[in-house]
């Protein structure tokens, strides 16, 4: 007997006014413009799901198919998710945290957590009959959409700003999408794509199929709880871009509790932003629930969302869970990337630097208690943003191919210790 894989998703529901809609490619409530979210038959999930059933599933996020809005049988699964949770003793020691873990999402198929959201969006788009998968992106999302479209037999149309670094372009081009370089800044791409999304009958992963797309992020919460031995952590530190990831991690804990798989979570949720694009951190600092959109100016381009769709919900979550929000400079981001690499052997992109630097800032401010079981989310790999650290690393030794040349150069590095 195979495992039953039919989805338990029942409807889309407006987060604001709770009006319900069928499971179609729509994302905004017609009445109040609130975002739509997938609802599930939790009674049926509770009767079906068990820790053992999940543990028997595939080593990807599709092991949590009972909580996802599409059928596992037809999944476009290139292996997203079920990434390592590392006990970060060295980084913890450096920061003064006794119980720190790193969720290492750099090892996804296209090296970022975006594979989680795209595997769901692509699967649902194909299920709904779409043939074209589209997105607007500054790198990570474009890479993931291109890869999943290729694997799922869909056509990809991907929009990027024309000044995007060449390695990020290549990370999409290799999968042969229609790559559109838009002449203009970030705002211009945004405006154009918002217009296109309204006119073309394509599955824009983070527009018309956004309710499904964003469900992918909650699998980070599922995995962390499972990897901790079926419990939610005391404290989470996660980057905030659109805010969707930040909100959905918590939803993951809540859903596991609803299904009876873990105790009710008391997790404090803290956020991390780059000062150069910190609408949520700024509003948080000012004690306001109304963020003001910003024009991004930071090296953390994958977090550079000036007008975050889930900004309000992020602020509400900070408030409701007794969290806090870090805001760190570009220099601190680079230092954070280096610290993570030098202590834990994890090479993260700039967003990871934002998280580590915020972890430091929040610990120093007393917002994170040293003994709290804290999980920091590292969402993308460093090779995506090599230019950020290229100028600040140790230069290699260059020597002739002989013993003496090596000794001379090495001794110069360690004048006191010699070559023990």
């Amino acid at each position, binding site marked *: 007997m195979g495992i039953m894989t039919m989805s338990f998703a029942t409807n889309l529901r407006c987060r604001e006014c709770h009006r319900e809609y069928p499971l179609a490619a729509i994302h905004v409530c017609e009445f109040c413009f609130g975002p739509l979210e997938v609802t599930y038959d939790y009674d049926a999930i509770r009767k079906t799901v068990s820790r053992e059933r999940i543990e028997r599933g595939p080593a990807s996020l599709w092991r949590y198919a009972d909580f996802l809005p599409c059928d596992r049988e037809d999944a476009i699964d290139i292996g997203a998710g079920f990434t390592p949770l590392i006990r970060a003793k060295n980084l913890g020691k450096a920061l003064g945290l006794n119980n720190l873990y790193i969720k290492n999402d750099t090892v996804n198929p296209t090296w970022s957590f975006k594979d989680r959201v795209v595997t769901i969006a692509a699967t649902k788009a194909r299920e709904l009959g779409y043939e074209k998968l589209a997105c607007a992106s*500054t790198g990570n999302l474009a890479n993931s959409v291109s890869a999943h479209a290729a694997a799922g037999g869909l056509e990809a149309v991907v929009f990027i700003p024309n000044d995007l670094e060449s390695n990020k372009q290549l990370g999409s081009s290799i999968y042969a999408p229609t790559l559109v370089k838009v002449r203009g800044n970030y705002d211009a791409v945004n405006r154009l794509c918002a217009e296109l999304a309204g006119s073309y009958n394509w599955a824009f992963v983070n527009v018309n199929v956004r309710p499904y797309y964003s469900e992918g992020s909650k699998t980070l919460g599922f995995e962390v709880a499972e990897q901790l031995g079926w419990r939610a952590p005391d404290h989470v530190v996660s980057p905030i871009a659109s805010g969707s990831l930040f909100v959905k991690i918590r939803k993951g804990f809540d859903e596991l509790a609803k299904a009876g798989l873990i105790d009710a979570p008391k997790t404090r949720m803290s956020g991390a932003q780059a000062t150069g694009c910190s609408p949520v951190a700024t509003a948080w600092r000012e004690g306001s629930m109304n963020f003001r959109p910003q024009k991004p100016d930071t090296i953390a381009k994958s977090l550079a969302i000036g007008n975050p769709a889930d900004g309000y919900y992020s602020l509400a979550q900070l408030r409701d869970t007794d969290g806090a929000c870090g805001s760190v400079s570009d220099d601190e981001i680079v230092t954070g990337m280096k610290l993570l690499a030098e202590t834990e052997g994890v090479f993260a992109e700039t967003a990871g630097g934002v998280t580590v630097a915020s972890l430091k800032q929040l610990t120093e401010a007393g917002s994170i208690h040293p003994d709290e079981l804290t999980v920091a989310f590292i969402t993308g790999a460093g090779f995506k943003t090599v230019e950020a650290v290229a100028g600040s690393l140790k230069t290699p030794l260059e020597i002739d191919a002989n013993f003496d040349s090596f000794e001379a150069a090495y001794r110069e590095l360690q004048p006191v210790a010699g070559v023990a």
Partner: protein
Amino acid sequence: MAIKRVRFTFPEQLIQEPVIYKLGHEFQVVTNVRMADVDQTTGWVILELDGDAGEIDRSLAWAQERGVRVDPLDGDIVEG
């Protein structure tokens, strides 16, 4: 004819100005405030604009020139 939904964010110096009223007079566009939150120092309004597509675009450019931030309703759709 077209209908466009946008989010206006007002800086402090514009809070007391009747920007939406003026927009409706300067351009052949019907404005409909659907949601809003305005206080003494900042504010946002979700606005539905009904009219000729070119006229709507001109009216939005006019609002931006006056210092209003105009965004698509869904927030940024470019992601990392």
